[in-house]
């Protein structure tokens, strides 16, 4: 409902306005992006070399360890996107800017989707950077140029889902500190997966069990398949499937949390 004499903006226009603000904020705080982009690359450099002996384990795929590991920075980057999205929204809630938006005719779905604008821009940029660095360090993309584009799409989709996690935490707790405190837990999820070794080479039974039921394993394996296997329909289906499922779940829960947070009639 708008003031008399005005017409209600279209949903896309509302999303666009909120997203535009999110993107402006991201661009104007470029310095904050350095660490989230750099840290996964540092880990990639260190672990890619330090764990290269893993290729000698019987049963390890016949590829360089760096190629095997390239999927991981995309996932780590997605975690940082989750924190960024959550902290940004939490700051709006803490400062009262959220209430300012709530006073306008903006729809909750537009607020939610628009807030993701900046984090998704970051996800796109960092995915391109990781891919370029990977290729520059000698990793070949087995699925070719087309596969590289699909990889970028999957990576951004994963980041979108993780951004939903950050948003959900922000709406639930309303504080940037709480979002950041959850970050280690999200990192744990990444480690307890097939991030460092293929699932069939995870010897310790409980670890194997956790990695098998951890959606992060399938997200990583989806990206990894495009790098080391070519077109693996099963891995891609699982990767995209889990990415979409996480997205739907987190956005759905965020919408509920948004309704609770708004409390407005």
């Amino acid at each position: 409902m708008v003031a008399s004499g005005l017409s209600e903006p279209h949903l896309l226009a509302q999303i666009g306005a909120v997203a535009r603000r999110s993107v402006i904020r991201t661009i104007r705080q470029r310095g904050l992006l350095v660490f989230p982009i750099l840290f996964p690359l540092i880990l990639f450099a260190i672990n890619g070399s330090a764990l290269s002996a893993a290729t000698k384990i019987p049963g390890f795929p016949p590829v360089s360890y760096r190629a095997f590991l390239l999927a991981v920075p995309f996932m780590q980057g997605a975690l940082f996107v989750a924190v960024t999205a959550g902290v940004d929204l939490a700051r709006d809630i803490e400062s009262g800017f959220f209430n300012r938006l709530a006073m306008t005719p903006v729809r909750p779905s537009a607020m939610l989707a628009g807030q993701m604008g900046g984090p998704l821009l970051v996800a796109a940029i960092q995915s391109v950077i990781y891919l370029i660095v990977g290729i520059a360090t000698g990793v070949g993309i087995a699925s070719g140029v087309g596969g590289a584009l699909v990889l970028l799409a999957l990576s951004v989709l994963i980041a979108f889902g993780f951004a939903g996690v950050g948003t959900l935490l922000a709406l639930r707790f309303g504080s940037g500190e709480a979002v950041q405190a959850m970050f280690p837990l999200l990192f744990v999820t990444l480690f307890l997966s097939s991030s460092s070794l293929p699932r069939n080479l995870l010897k310790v039974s409980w670890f194997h069990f956790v990695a098998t039921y951890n959606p992060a394993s399938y997200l990583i394996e989806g990206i990894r398949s495009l790098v080391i296997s070519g077109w693996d329909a099963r891995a891609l289906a699982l990767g995209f499937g889990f990415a979409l499922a996480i997205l739907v779940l987190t956005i759905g829960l965020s919408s509920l949390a948004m309704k609770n947070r708004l409390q407005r009639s």
Partner: protein
Amino acid sequence: MRRFASVTRGVAWRSIHNTIKTPSVLVPSILFPLFFLAAFAGGLSKIAQVPSFHYRAGYTAFQFVFVFLQSSAFGGVFTGFAVARDFDSGFARRLLLSAPNRGGIIAGYTIGAALRWFLTGTVVTIAALIAGMNVDGSGIQLIGLLGVGLMVNLVAALWAIGTAMFLRTEQAGAVIQMPVFVIVFLAPVYVPLNLLTGWIHAVAKYNPATVVLEAGRGLFDASPVKVALAFIVLAAGAAVMAAWARRGLASAERAG
């Protein structure tokens, strides 16, 4: 001397008291090492099947020593975060004004760091033992490992305290943490030095953290190697970082 001791005691007490009373600080500092132990020892255990991987006590013990020493290093780093927070909140100024011997402030923080690590190290050790880790080292050798850990904690704490005092803001966290992180992870973390190849082998070979880590692992599986060198490296590190911390304190005093 008495003033030094009283200031040291007061600052150390506050440091450990605040850590215990703040779950959001205490819990991650205990959980993270546990979680690294689980991830590395659990997730990478097949590394032990790589030809030329020799560690008598097994891969869990191999990773335990790394996590034990890493938690020691990061225990020192977290103390630096606390110092930085004290500056942001203004409490550090109060401390500087009221302490009759300001050197005691640094000593107090480092003791606080050691006590904090004592908690973490104990939990990690118990967890590793429950996971069935083999312990091959003798009593003296294990005490030697503890000594290595304490020295690592001291070096890292002095670095972190000095840096925090130079920068005097919580934003200093990344500056404090990153060098320690890079030095620690550019050592033979997942496999022994002989199994590293490429640029990381070259870097790790000259990384002082490698000597320390290898000495620790050697003490743990009763095949001590380069222990004296490790202690010399650590003592030198402590001397350099003590001077760094002292200069940091002087910088904070000048800033008022």
